[in-house]
């Protein structure tokens, strides 16, 4: 199973600058980003796009406004953005106003010699509507240095010199933009799109050289609200700016907006397909030498005390060098099987390759069929069968990755019993004390809250699949409990009492569980967990997963009885309990797109479904989004109307170049409410099993001989 470590990778911009050092070549060639963090000049959009898969982090200051945006090029022609804005003095009482917004934009036409590139964008299409606007924009390069942009915009883009909506030709309704629908935000306000007056905007970008770009634009954003509050002085539609691109890929931009307001911006574009160190820093695998030499090795020579036990000892040590724990070993004259738990390699295929090499460089020469069984918590998942002679033939073959894949066979290992199990393997006991930091975001009073302290984890496994585990935390510092947010929920407060949990607890028992994982049959996986399952709930959870080894589709079902825990996070419970559970479908669309639907009953007793789409790069970097709709009305749900968010996963190896199963992950929800909330039980099966199933092994096979 992969270790998921929350957060620490933040979309904080310190991280982006750290990445800048390791990913310098990852910038797209010339696309410049606006203060909104989307392709643009200074404030106005252009029809340019990032390269497919690129992730752009932008932080900008315009007068009292600070915008932090992350933009992801989801497909070559589609990008999505999430933005967190702070407007100093933006509230009526003079305090700062915080706003979250989502954009989506579509590249309608690519540029040709004669035709400009054309893009269509929806800004702030889910939020409270502070920035809501739509635009259609065209950009054309003229000569090698100049780019000209012109567009038409509605909503916030129609602040200056606006005219009657030309779409009125289609229907008179387009001429007025409905107002007052902002409300709680979060709704798709499609009824407003492209309606009301329109304005024309445009500008120029001049690329002085590879590093420096000059901008001039005519912007139609008049910052009405901020101007009325006396926060910003917009006295001219003309904005000018200059951008410098540093060698490490960071862009720095300075500009003047509205004639008087000086602003600045920093941007970094990351390509998740380019890791810090392309080949990896891990040490070399064992080269496979002559089998005849192995016949002479002491451990294979019965006259010198050799035999199965002696060979196993050598094998165990060699696997351990690669972070592979030997859990079972069977040897006949021509066949050998090892069962291993991979603790090091993010790519399962690399672990399989290393294990097969350890066998091929250790076992007697007659052994030809090498079987590696991947185990998770002692439970067999998949087996990979390789011919020893194929390894010998292909270890130096320039097409060895593909050829070794095509000659290997990957099978389900449900039928592997405990024969050959390493003696004294059980019980396994492990514990560790470490620091931790946990973050919470977007409290209206404080955008980032953090808690840090000491964490103790331990587990005890008396037999395969059965694990007793616990996690305790002792917070030492932080500002989570300083929040005065109390639950204002109109439904059962299953998540909105987070502050009370933080405030009323001291030593926290985060988890204390007994878990049993098992293989009920071919392609089937099972899990039962009981105890204190997560910070806020305890109970019993049972899950069944169907996942054939080469399948794109996996199906799962989970049912839980959960009872709400006391705020002190010790052993007591509150009165509220619920039966919650979901039926889940997981589908791999190919090209790295993964879909998941979970339908069922949520913690507050609401019924509905969660839809998630992730783009996973071959190296494990993931960017995704999800939303949940349930029978809780948007009024009862409160701010945001329904649950939604974006999520990032960065394999630690992406940053360090060293093999690791650790993944830094972060889910960002604009707001956490009680509707559509799921139980956070550990070790849901699909993610655990997936790394050792055929599709994932195949994706990682480039590392088989690494």
């Amino acid at each position, binding site marked *: 199973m992969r270790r998921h470590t929350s957060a620490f990778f933040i979309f904080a911009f310190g991280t982006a600058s750290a990445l800048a050092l390791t990913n310098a070549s990852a910038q797209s060639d010339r696309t410049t980003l606006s203060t909104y963090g989307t392709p643009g000049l200074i404030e106005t959009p252009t029809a340019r796009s990032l390269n497919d898969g690129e992730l752009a982090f932008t932080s900008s200051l315009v007068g009292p406004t600070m915008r932090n945006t992350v933009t992801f090029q989801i497909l070559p022609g589609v990008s999505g953005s999430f933005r967190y804005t702070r407007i100093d003095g933006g509230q009526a009482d003079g305090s700062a106003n915080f706003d979250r917004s989502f954009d989506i934009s579509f590249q309608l036409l690519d540029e040709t010699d004669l035709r400009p590139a054309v893009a269509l964008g929806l800004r702030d299409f889910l939020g409270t509507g502070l920035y809501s606007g739509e635009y259609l924009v065209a950009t054309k390069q003229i000569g090698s240095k100049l780019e000209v942009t012109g567009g038409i915009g509605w909503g916030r883009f129609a602040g200056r010199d606006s005219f009657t909506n030309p779409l009125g030709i289609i229907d008179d309704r387009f001429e007025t933009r409905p107002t007052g629908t902002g409300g709680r935000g979060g709704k798709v306000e499609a009824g407003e799109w492209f309606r009301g007056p329109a304005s024309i905007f445009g500008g120029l970008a001049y690329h002085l050289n590879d590093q420096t770009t000059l901008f001039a634009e005519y912007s139609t954003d008049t910052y009405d609200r901020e101007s009325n509050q006396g926060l910003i002085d917009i006295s001219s539609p003309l904005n000018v700016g200059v951008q410098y691109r540093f060698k490490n890929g960071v862009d720095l931009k300075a500009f003047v907006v509205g004639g008087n307001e000086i602003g600045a911006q920093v941007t970094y574009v990351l390509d998740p397909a380019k890791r810090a160190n392309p080949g*990896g820093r891990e*040490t*070399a695998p064992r080269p496979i030498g002559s089998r005849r030499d192995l016949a002479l090795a002491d451990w294979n020579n019965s006259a010198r005390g050799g035999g199965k036990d002696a060979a196993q000892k050598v094998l165990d040590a060699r696997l351990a060098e690669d972070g592979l724990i030997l859990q079972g070993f069977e040897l006949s004259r021509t066949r050998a099987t090892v069962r291993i738990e991979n603790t090091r390699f993010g790519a399962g295929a690399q672990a399989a390759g290393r294990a097969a090499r350890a066998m091929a460089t250790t076992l007697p020469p007659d052994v030809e069929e090498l079987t590696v069984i991947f185990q998770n918590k002692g439970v067999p998942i998949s087996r990979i069968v390789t011919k020893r002679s194929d390894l010998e033939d292909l270890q130096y073959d320039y097409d060895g990755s593909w050829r070794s894949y095509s000659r290997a066979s990957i099978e389900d290992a449900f039928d592997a019993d405990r024969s050959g199990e390493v003696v004294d393997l059980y019980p396994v006991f492990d514990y560790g004390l470490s620091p931790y930091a946990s973050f919470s975001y977007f409290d209206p009073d404080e955008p980032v809250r953090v808690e840090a302290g000491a964490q103790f984890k331990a587990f005890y496994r008396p037999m395969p699949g059965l694990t007793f585990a616990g996690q305790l935390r002792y917070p030492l510092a932080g500002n989570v409990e300083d929040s005065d947010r109390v639950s204002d929920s109109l439904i059962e407060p299953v998540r909105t009492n987070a502050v009370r949990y933080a405030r009323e607890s001291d030593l926290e028992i985060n988890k204390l569980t007994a878990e049993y994982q098992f293989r009920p049959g071919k392609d089937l996986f099972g899990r039962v967990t009981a105890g204190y399952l997560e910070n806020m709930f305890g109970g019993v959870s049972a899950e069944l997963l169907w996942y054939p080894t080469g399948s794109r589709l996996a199906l799962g079902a989970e049912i839980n009885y959960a009872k709400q825990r006391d705020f002190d996070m010790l052993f007591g419970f509150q009165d509220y309990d619920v039966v919650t559970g979901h039926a889940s479908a997981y589908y791999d669309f190919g090209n790295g797109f993964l879909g998941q639907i979970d339908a069922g009953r949520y913690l507050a007793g609401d019924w509905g479904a969660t839809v998630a789409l992730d783009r996973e790069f071959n190296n494990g970097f993931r960017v995704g989004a999800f939303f949940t709709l349930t029978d809780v009305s948007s009024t009862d749900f409160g701010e945001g109307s329904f649950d939604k968010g974006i999520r990032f996963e960065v394999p*630690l190896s992406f940053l360090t170049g060293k093999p690791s199963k650790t993944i830094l992950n972060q889910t960002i929800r604009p707001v956490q409410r009680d509707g559509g909330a799921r139980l956070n039980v550990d070790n849901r099966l699909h993610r655990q099993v997936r790394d050792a199933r055929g599709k994932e092994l195949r*994706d990682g096979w480039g590392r088989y001989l690494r």
Partner: protein
Amino acid sequence: MGALPAMKWKFGILAGAAFSLAACGNQSFQDRAIGLMLEEPNLAHAAGQFPRFAPLLAAKRGPALDVQIVQSGLRGGFLRESTQGTIESWLGNDGVALIFDRGVLHGTRGLGAGMLASDVSASANAILAGRSGEVDRIHTFLNGNDIAVIRAYKCTIVNEGSETIQLDSGATSTRRMVETCFSLDQSFKNIYWVDTSRGRIVQSRQWSGEFVGQLAIQTVYNF
């Protein structure tokens, strides 16, 4: 002319090499901090010599290779770990490896761009035979997205005649062979010095891929 006092040649370390180009600062501190915060398991040989290297060093079956990354100046020593046909795998004392086909770079592990394997047999044939001409070569690189990318190159090999070079064993007469290769978007130039009496490449400058570029490789007989 008296013999030069024997300078003890040392095995350096190249493991940090690939990374040091990209990051700065105290790497071991960074690794330790990551280990602590993220509960990463520690590698047994995190500091010091790679376990597989000690027996090779003890066996003293030479020669060794002195390898320098031209761009960064980092250098390290390698010993032959395994041979299969014409392919040899050489291990560095920090666990990285270089793979050669008769002295022509065939692969890298833990160093540089991740050259998984190659077909450089035509180059090796021509270079060892002292034959000028055109050959093809193939390199497969592991890219940053864990995909094995196969690339083919056209190469021109020129015999530039004899040249005496200085190795630790003394002045050595060699034949200097220059190979210029290009693909649609990459090009590189390798130089090989072939020891005319031993019939093998004893010194070379070879391209290892885009990440760290050229390696300067020299045979060391006394270590």
